[in-house]
């Protein structure tokens, strides 16, 4: 199976905060989608599979706008921020099994100018992982939003392994450093030091303000097709070697886990590496879903780049910087490029593997991974090869 599906097109809108995109959520995603489709050398009408991000649009409305008269495959992986990388696996299965020929993966929102996190959680129960469980057992106690939910895991990590604030800071500083190499990044031209990080206010201790992802407007999209079909297209296809996803247990309740560090990626990563026939040591770069700094550290551990408990020292000393042992999020990630729900991580991985990451190219990048993290710790991973 390995290598039979490819990413053949990538597209993005501009990423911004003030004054906002000036476009609708759907309009933004369509803009990125059309760019990805044309970049692949396809016409929008040739798209016959669409995998919208959870709660951010329906396949029907994408199809009606794009003119996809032959939509055959429509599915959404309900894993929050883990959806895009998880969707790569599903899209690969679709194109290799003949369920669809060209699958579009769009994601995007007005994360800055539209509904902000603090509003959606207060108003929309459907947007909260756990649904009624969160309503009945979390919200009455003020446990209302992602940085709070995840920071209790970060605190346990600090307690059990001695992970330090400066190590979380190293991640934030690295993402910001990478954003300086990416003119598209919202934080381009706004460097940050470890002292800046440490001085930022506590949002959900141990998470400071700069441990948290950006809220931005923007969209990104990719197109997946079979390796066979990709040969007829003009661009350089990037192979989806394997993908996998998983859930923590229980997935709908974050406090009663026997092993609080066992998340979806703990299950997914070994499966993905086994299917691809490679090991973490073969990976040239990693695009890690960086909703918060600690989630980067934790995913690096659970993927197997280092042992559990060693993530703190792993992220120090420039190891995850461009030029380091394992460059992470060379675009700046959710922390310093833009929050595009993980789709821009896939776009950046494709750029790196094509050798098109101007000014921030990982030398001789051959194999890269993309991870996703969503809801109460759902996880996904895709292994890509040039």
């Amino acid at each position: 199976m390995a290598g039979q599906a490819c990413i053949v097109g990538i597209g993005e809108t501009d990423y911004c905060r003030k004054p906002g995109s000036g476009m609708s959520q759907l309009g933004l995603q369509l803009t990125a989608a059309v760019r990805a489709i044309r970049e692949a050398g396809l016409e929008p009408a040739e798209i016959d599979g669409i995998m919208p991000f959870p709660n951010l649009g329906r396949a029907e409305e994408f199809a009606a706008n794009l003119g996809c008269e032959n939509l055959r495959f429509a599915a959404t992986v309900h894993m929050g921020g883990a959806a895009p990388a998880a969707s790569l696996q599903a899209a690969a299965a679709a194109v290799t099994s003949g369920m669809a020929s060209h699958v579009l993966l769009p994601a995007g929102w007005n994360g800055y100018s539209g509904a902000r996190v603090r509003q959606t959680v207060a108003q929309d129960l459907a947007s909260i992982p756990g649904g009624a469980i969160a309503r009945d057992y979390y919200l009455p106690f003020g446990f209302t939003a992602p940085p709070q939910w995840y920071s209790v895991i970060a605190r346990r990590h600090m307690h059990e392994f001695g992970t330090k604030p400066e190590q979380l800071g190293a991640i934030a500083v690295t993402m910001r450093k990478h954003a300086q190499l990416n003119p598209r990044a919202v934080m381009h031209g706004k460097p940050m030091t470890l002292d800046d990080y440490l001085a930022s206010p506590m949002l959900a201790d141990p998470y400071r303000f700069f441990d948290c992802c950006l809220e931005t407007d923007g969209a990104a999209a990719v197109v997946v097709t079979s390796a066979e079909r990709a040969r007829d297209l003009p661009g350089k296809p990037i192979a989806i070697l394997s993908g996998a996803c998983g859930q923590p247990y229980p997935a709908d309740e974050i406090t009663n886990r026997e092993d609080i560090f066992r998340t979806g990626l703990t299950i997914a990563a070994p499966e993905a590496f086994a299917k691809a026939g490679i090991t973490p040591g073969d990976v040239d770069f990693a695009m890690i879903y960086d909703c918060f700094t600690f989630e980067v550290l934790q995913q690096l551990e659970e993927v197997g780049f280092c042992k559990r408990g060693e993530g703190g020292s792993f992220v120090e000393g420039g190891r995850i910087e461009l030029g380091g042992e394992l460059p992470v999020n060379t675009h700046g990630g959710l922390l310093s490029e833009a929050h595009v729900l993980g789709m821009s991580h896939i776009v950046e991985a494709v750029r790196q593997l094509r050798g098109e990451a101007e000014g921030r190219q990982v030398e001789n990048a051959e194999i890269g991974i993309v991870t996703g993290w969503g809801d109460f710790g759902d996880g996904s991973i895709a292994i890509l090869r040039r």
Partner: protein
Amino acid sequence: MSEASAYTKPLPELEGHAREFYGFCKQRELRFQRCTKCRAWRHVPREMCAGCGSTEWEWARASGRGSVFTWTVVGRALHPAFQEDTPYAPVVVEMEEGVRLLSQVVDCPPEALEIGMPVEVVFDDVTDEVTLPKFRRAPA
């Protein structure tokens, strides 16, 4: 604390298992589901025992004692109803029975919290209908 009209924070919906759980709290009893077949405690309430598959359970009374497992300190509220409370600490309490519960420790400033700190349940009648189980520091 019974001025119902003044209470603006989110409340549990008193339906199904939550109605029972919070109903016991109103009676000053902290009870969790306990499988009558394999005797496993569980929280949050479920329809069946994930361990043995039994759909039979009782609402077994817990000792009310536990310890702080982890917590966060909210410095910037992400829900309007909690804006005036900052800084406040949602705390995960591990009960003697093994289940964990998300709550707050009412008599401990966030900076004094410690993992392993012994706590015991207290009941906070936030409205006429709803009583929330919260915790206070307990002797070791």
